[in-house]
């Protein structure tokens, strides 16, 4: 079918820290070199920030480079980190504070800021729009548009007004092609187009498989007496066992709010593990609950993060486009931070494009300069330095691995002459359900811990009800015939939004039910399904969570 199209110099997919930094940097460089540049950003969330979920403690390195005057411009970096506590939790009741000198160096937070990345992105979007960038929230990039020679030509926005059965409703509006000389993919972790690009262009042939974690986060308004603005708390240990990687965070933000969450590596092995319930019970430890008692939970959400580090970074360029931020995977697992590297790689993409324009025509060309820029940037330097941090935790467990990490980072400065690899993808790590014991999770108390549905409610998630399901099964029999007997269908427990259920049909047979309207777009199912049978595709634009200051 013939589609309408619009042409730009650069199309950016995703208005997160990477995409917006790329947009800002492009306009700055275009102004410096006095050229007209048409740049547009499309964002699947109903507004900029609606799908942004991050801790977050922001290291301001990239922000300083992008907007040296960010303070005067009013960037919402209002809370400098004032305290930095790390606890090793030994059980439900106990935790030991780790002395500062024993904490691996990358985990120190002096000079950083406690922020809401959603608000930082809203601010970045204002800056970008002020410089002439077109930002279109509520529009998904549903497909990649290719040229005949196989190079990327742009993206196709999703059709609107399609009914569940695929028929066109009265409100039907076909998607349109957004064409560009270069398309920057900045969808965040496990972007659904990024995943296709990796396959089409074999971008990760020289990299380890990407590794992931799921972060589940809440924002609370707490008793002002207990609030210590700028205090940053991290925990390791309980409720996870020594061989399940993960940990918790609790950051004191502005206005008597705290942002807290728990990240679990998706290479966990016990299919009975419920990520949501682990997060809920973690809050019961007094090191956390002391802040929450008497407070009110105001927001909830979840998002996968990539933590493969240097070893998992794919090739960043291909004919017609570039990968930036978490779509490629620049999170520094040792620092537990990826916003600064996301921003920086977005800026590197902008520099790559502008410098390549000087050298000649960039339309649908592969700009391999991007890879060189990454290799000579501080992003590569810090990922290289911390390259063994993740694998050490994976190889030796939290305690021994943590000790290695301390030695590696604090004594050797990341310069040990070897690089460890982890080549098992996260979907291939589950053990059969019969070989594992199911954890016994406490019932929600309605004060500190809550059930899944009342949690999803706080994410303000909404999808148009009458639309095709955006969680697609390649083989609809696998969940019941294969995953259920083998792994007790783990989707029921890794999904933090209650999307997947095994229910009985009228005949009393097991049935796999997908409640797509609950989906908070975390992408965990796409990552962890042991059969790799679930594909996350974009729902109708504007659908998904409506996060405020997450």
């Amino acid at each position: 079918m013939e589609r309408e199209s619009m042409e730009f110099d650069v199309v950016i997919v995703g208005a997160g820290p990477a995409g917006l930094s790329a947009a800002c940097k492009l306009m700055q460089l275009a102004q410096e070199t006095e050229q007209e540049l048409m740049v547009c950003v499309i964002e699947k969330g109903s507004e900029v920030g609606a799908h942004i979920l991050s801790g977050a403690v922001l290291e301001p390195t990239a922000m300083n480079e992008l907007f040296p005057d960010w303070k005067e411009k009013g960037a919402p970096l209002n809370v400098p980190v004032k305290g930095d506590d790390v606890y090793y939790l030994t059980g439900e009741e106990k935790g030991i504070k780790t002395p500062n000198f024993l904490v691996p160096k990358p985990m120190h937070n002096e000079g950083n800021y406690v922020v809401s990345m959603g608000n930082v992105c809203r601010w970045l979007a204002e800056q970008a729009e002020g410089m002439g960038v077109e930002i279109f929230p509520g529009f998904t990039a549903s497909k990649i548009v290719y040229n005949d020679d196989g190079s990327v030509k742009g993206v196709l926005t999703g059709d609107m007004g399609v009914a569940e059965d695929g028929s066109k409703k009265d409100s039907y509006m076909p998607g349109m092609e957004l064409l560009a000389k270069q398309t920057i993919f900045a969808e965040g972790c496990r972007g659904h187009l990024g995943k296709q690009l990796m396959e089409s262009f074999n971008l990760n042939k020289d990299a380890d498989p990407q590794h992931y974690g799921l972060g589940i986060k809440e924002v609370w308004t707490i008793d002002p007496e207990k609030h210590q603005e700028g205090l940053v708390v991290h925990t390791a240990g309980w409720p996870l066992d020594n061989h399940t990687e993960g940990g918790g965070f609790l950051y004191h933000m502005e206005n008597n709010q705290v942002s807290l969450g728990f990240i679990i590596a998706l290479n966990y092995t016990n299919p009975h593990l419920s990520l949501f319930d682990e997060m809920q019970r973690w809050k019961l430890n007094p090191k956390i609950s002391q802040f929450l008692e008497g407070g009110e939970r105001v927001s909830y959400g979840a998002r996968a993060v990539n933590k493969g580090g240097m070893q998992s970074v794919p090739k960043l360029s291909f004919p017609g486009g570039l990968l930036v931020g978490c779509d490629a995977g620049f999170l520094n697992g040792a620092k537990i931070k990826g916003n600064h590297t996301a921003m920086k790689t977005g800026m590197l993409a902008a520099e790559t494009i502008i410098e390549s324009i000087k050298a000649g025509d960039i339309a649908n060309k592969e700009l391999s300069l991007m890879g060189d820029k990454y290799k000579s940037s501080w992003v590569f330097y810090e990922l290289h330095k911390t390259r063994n941090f993740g694998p050490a935790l994976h190889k030796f467990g939290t305690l021994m691995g943590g000790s290695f990490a301390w030695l590696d980072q604090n004594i050797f400065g990341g310069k040990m002459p070897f690089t460890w690899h982890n080549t098992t993808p996260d979907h291939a790590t589950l053990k059969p359900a019969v070989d594992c014991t199911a954890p016994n999770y406490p019932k929600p108390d309605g004060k500190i811990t809550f059930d899944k549905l009342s949690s999803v409610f706080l994410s303000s998630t909404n999808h148009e009800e009458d639309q095709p399901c955006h969680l697609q099964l390649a083989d609809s029999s696998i969940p019941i015939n294969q995953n259920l007997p083998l792994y007790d269908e783990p989707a029921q427990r890794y999904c933090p939004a209650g999307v997947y259920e095994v229910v009985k049909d009228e005949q009393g047979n097991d049935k796999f039910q997908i409640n797509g309207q609950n989906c908070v777009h975390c992408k965990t199912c796409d990552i962890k399904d042991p059969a790799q049978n679930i594909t996350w595709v974009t729902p109708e634009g504007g659908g998904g969570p409506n996060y405020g200051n997450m």
Partner: protein
Amino acid sequence: MKILVGVKRVVDFNVRIQVKADGSGVTTDGVKMSMNPFDEIAVEEALRIKEAGNAEEVIVVTIGPKAAQEQLRTALAMGADRAIHVETDDEIQPLTAARILQALAEKEAPKLVLLGKQAIDDDNNQTAQMLGALSHWPQATFASEVEIEGDKATVIREVDAGLETLSVDLPAVISADLRLNEPRYVKLPDIMKAKRKPLETVTVEELGVEHVAAVKVLKTAAPAKREAGIIVESVDELVAALKEKGLI
């Protein structure tokens, strides 16, 4: 003929409302704001009337802070021709809103003023009625169907007893109910075009309207939390439990 449509910036309907700790209102910081859904229906209806050849121009107006221009741009992207922003940071109550709209109606001389039946933030459902009274124009509220024929509008309204069909002389005030239409999706090129459509800013004072706050909000509170229920085994037990609570 011209159609004047009023739109209001409100907290998005998907957002879970949070009451401020001091009870002075609800939190709007960092909260997604949108066009009041009933107003969106009103804009859609105006556009359909224009597309049917029964109007030449659709003018959208909002009263509110600078940020409310976002909602005007949305209406322009949907297809409205131009916009008027009555800029104020004050809280505007229905009577003031109606007076402002009356002043604008005198200036612009539309044949039809279309409004949402109520805003989802304060649920007042008063502005259209007040505007009708102030202008001495006929009013047809809660419209679920509107048809324009010459100098008359036929309006079907949803009332408790069913449907009521009215015929009103134009100029008139019509307020839109939920089932009047389903607003269209906005197209990307139209969002870009909307940025270049005319948007005029005026103040309440320039329109010669005096700001009145006839109603004072004393307190805003969240609904009481629902208490946990109990599961009963039999009808007898249910009856006993209801009796115990004094409900039967």
